[in-house]
Every structure is written in structure tokens, then in C-alpha cells.
């Protein structure tokens, strides 16, 4: 398992993703910091606790990453090298999941450092409201978990990395529209509150008041449901991965 993980990280280190998206996160944080200060868009505290609004960029980066981490291996045939050895398919799949987690932590760390530098430069302060930052980060991480696991599931059946990215990114926008449309129906048919799209409001519900009146779910239900759907999506993705012929 350690060998598989080392190999996944080796591939990332020799790829462009981490450096490219790391630079994008840094530049975006600087741009937002500069604009927020110049045009008074948000205070330094909000800039910091919202991680310079870079979470949306992380979301896109992670969907791209998740969509391609398996589909590219199938598209280029390199999956043969991974699966024709002594490791089980489950181990290979787990190594991919852990690499996804590493990449997420990496992007969060880069974003945090970039935002902190932006706060120091543009707002002349290093003050951080840790509790609010933690809440924002936690809620967005749950949202990302749900979106990323759905993207992983979709990409597992895609034939090419490009198609997987397209479907994954389209899914982000489509799911938010479907979520809003379904929220209208939820008020009429209460059982619909358990549909997976309702859980895509998890970040709003945990950071903004009165969203529970739309979703009809408590915060705990929202968190548990989000995790449960994510685990289900990952489980199905793993099942497909295990059964797929090369």
C-alpha cells in the first residue's frame, strides 16, 4: 500500500497539477485581497475567514483532479501497469482516494498561506477568527466531499479524462440548479428532503441562518446525510472500478 501511495505522489510531483493550481490559488488570493481593499468589497476578517473566497476555485480544481485521477489512467492505458501487479484493485482504489485527500489538504494549506499573506499585505493585520474559519472550512469540506464523490462516480464510467472533467464541472453547476428547483418541491413533498441534491445545501445551512426551513433538515441530519451519500457514491465508484475489465 505504501508503494502504491508513493507512486501516486511521485506521479503528482512530476505533473503540473499541483504547481499550476497552487499558483492559481495564490494569484486569486492576491487579486481578491487587492480588490477587497481597494473597492471595500469585504473586511480583512471576512477575507480571512472565507479564505479569500478561493473555496470555489478549490472546488473546481478538485473536481478536475478527482475526475481525471482514474479516468486518465484508463484513457492512456496506464491502468494496466497499476492493476497487473500483486496489489488488489481495492488497494489501488484506496491509494487514489488518499491521494485525493492529500491534494485537498495541499490546496487548503496553499490557500490559507496565500490568504494570510494577502491579509498581511492588503489589510496590514494577521488577525484570524479561528472559529469562523473552522466553520466555513468544515462546511465547504462537507460540500466538496459530496460533489467530489459524485464526480468520482461519474468519472469512473467515462472513457476519457476530458469527458470526465466536462461531466464533473457541468455537474457542479447542474447540481446547484437542480438543488434549487428541488427545494421548491421539498416544501410540498417532505419526503423529497432526502434526495441527494438537497444535501448540496450543506455549506449554506451550516454557515447561514434559516436555510433549514428550506431543506427541512436539522444540521445533524444534513451532516450525516452528506457523509452517507458520499460514502455511498465512493462505494459504488469502488465497485465499478473493481469490476471494470481493462
Amino acid at each position, binding site marked *: 500500500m505504501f*508503494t502504491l501511495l508513493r*507512486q501516486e505522489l*511521485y*506521479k503528482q510531483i*512530476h*505533473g*503540473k497539477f499541483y504547481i499550476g493550481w497552487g499558483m492559481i490559488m495564490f494569484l486569486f488570493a492576491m487579486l481578491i485581497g487587492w480588490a477587497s481593499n481597494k473597492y471595500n468589497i469585504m473586511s480583512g476578517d471576512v477575507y480571512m475567514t472565507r479564505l479569500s473566497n478561493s473555496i470555489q476555485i478549490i472546488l473546481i480544481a478538485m473536481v478536475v483532479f478527482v475526475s481525471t485521477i482514474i479516468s486518465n489512467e484508463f484513457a*492512456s*492505458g*496506464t*491502468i*494496466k*501497469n497499476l*492493476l*497487473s*501487479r*500483486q*496489489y*488488489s484493485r481495492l488497494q489501488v482504489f484506496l491509494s487514489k482516494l488518499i491521494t485525493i485527500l492529500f491534494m485537498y489538504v495541499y490546496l487548503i494549506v496553499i490557500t490559507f498561506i496565500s490568504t494570510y499573506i494577502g491579509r498581511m499585505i492588503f489589510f496590514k493585520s494577521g488577525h484570524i477568527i479561528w472559529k469562523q474559519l473552522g466553520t466555513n472550512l468544515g462546511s465547504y469540506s462537507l460540500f466538496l466531499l459530496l460533489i467530489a464523490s459524485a464526480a468520482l462516480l461519474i468519472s469512473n464510467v467515462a472513457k476519457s479524462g476530458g469527458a470526465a472533467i466536462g461531466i464533473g464541472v457541468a455537474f457542479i453547476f447542474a447540481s446547484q440548479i437542480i438543488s434549487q428547483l428541488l427545494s421548491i418541491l421539498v416544501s410540498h413533498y417532505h419526503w423529497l428532503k432526502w434526495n441527494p441534491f438537497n444535501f448540496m445545501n450543506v455549506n449554506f445551512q451550516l454557515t447561514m441562518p434559516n436555510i433549514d426551513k428550506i431543506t427541512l433538515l436539522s444540521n445533524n441530519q444534513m451532516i450525516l446525510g452528506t457523509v452517507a451519500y458520499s460514502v455511498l457514491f465512493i462505494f459504488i465508484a469502488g465497485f465499478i472500478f473493481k*469490476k471494470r*475489465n*481493462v
Partner: protein
Amino acid sequence: MNTLEIKNLSKFYGRTKALHNITFDIKPGSILGLIGPNGAGKSTIMKSIVGLTNYSTGSILVNNEKLKKGSRKGLKNVGSMIETPALYGHMTGLQNLKLFNDGSTSDAEIKKIMDETQISSFANKKAKNYSLGMRQRLGIAMALLNHPKLLILDEPMNGLDPQSTHDLRDLLLKLSKRGISILISSHLLDELARIADYYVVINHGKLVKQSDAKSFLSADNAVIKLDTNNNDNGLKAIQNAGLDAHIVDRDIEVKDEGNALNTALKALVDANVDITNVQRQQEDLEESLLNLLTKDKGDK
């Protein structure tokens, strides 16, 4: 102990049976040529061994370890290149090699593999810029990592120029002398004929024939070609001596079995027919395979 043992291997795609009770084995240090037409099931057998596709029934033992779901220990010492070599284009050849080194191959050993497969000159270039021949060589180098006892090579000579093909042939013979068993498929039958110790012929997912290389070629189809000053009289004399003979392309062709050559020559001398040319011809692998496949088709 055999390096590879395949017993009654069958594979279904839906209701279609792609492999029918395939059974064969490979002894340590021997080279087994897996031959057959396109779509016969050669790659499916190879993929089943390395776990790229699930087989339906039967068993596969590699290095005395039974391969089954959840137990793939036997594959630890198996190097493979199935179909086209799969490389990470954004990485160099050397990085591709290092990526799949599980830690058991030292840098010196990697260098030796690079020299043997002749990839050192381009190992520091990105793999996406490689020609097919370069990709093939790197794919073979990757298969040689981690001290394999069994090499599975699917069409490894594709895209190689004559010199590289010759070098690969030498390398495979050298590896087999070191005790590495090799399962190889190739449509370049002349090349295969120069290295294989055994053949397994697959057609329509069925094992049509398996034998050692010598008996595979000499079994039924060796002939003696004779040219004389009077082939009509010569043919009659040879046939009267009880031999199976015909005129083919103006020569007398006699089936080469037992003491046929001596008998034919004596018959011609006794009949006062002058012999101008004698040639012994053995069927090559391609002809043997074609005859075998034609016979297999006729049997159906």
C-alpha cells in the same frame, strides 16, 4: 515446479465463451510462444494471468501461488507488457522506470536494464515524444523491473526495426538462460521460431495444439524436393518404391518420413534417372500454423 500453470481456464463475455478450458504450463527458464490469429484469445489469456480481466472458471498458479480474488501474491515476480506499452507521457523514460520500481531494484540494476533494452540514449526525454519502437523498449524495460521470474510479453516486437528486433531476441534468450520464464505472443512468426522452446496455438478461444518447437515443425510436413532429367519417370519410380510423392512446381516432392530420402534416391538410380538437385525442406512456423488453422476450420 512450473513457473506458470493454467488449468481449465474459461472466460465468458455474457453468454459468449471467449476461452474454452485452456490448460498449459511454463517451465522455469523456457520460452513459450502463444500463437494464433487476431481475436483468438491470446491477449485474454495474458490479461487473465495478470488480473486485468476476471476469468470465469479454472485456475492460474504463478510461482506456485494460486491467483484468485484478494490473493495476488504470485504476481510479485511477474513482469508484463500487455498490448501497447502504457507510459506516463508527462514523465521521462527514467521517471517511468523509477515510478514502477517497488524498491527492490537498485539504481545500478535500473541502469543495467536500461543498457540491456537500449533506452539509455533517450531515457531523459519525455515519453510522450517517443516513437513506437522506443515505447516498446521502455515497456519491456518496465517489465524487467523488480526481478521477475515470469515475463509476459504481448507482441513485444511490434514497431521495432530489424536491429532492435534482433537485439530483443538476444535479450530474451539471455533472460531465459538466467532462469526467467517467458510467455510471448507475436505475429512475427519467423522471430518467434528463433527463440521459442514451446508453442501453444489458440484459435477461437480453444487450445488447438501445444508441443515443443522441434516436433511442432517437423511433425507432418517436411518434404524432399528432387529435380531429375526425367521427372515423370522419376515420380513413377519413387511411387513404385512405396513413397508418397507428387510433382509440385516442376519438382518431385516426397514426404520426408522415415528413410524416405535413401529409398527415393535408390529408386531413381535403379530407374536410370539422373538426379540434378536434391533439397530437404522443412515447413516453417507460419506454414505450420496456417495448415493447423485450416485443419481446425475443416474439423468444424
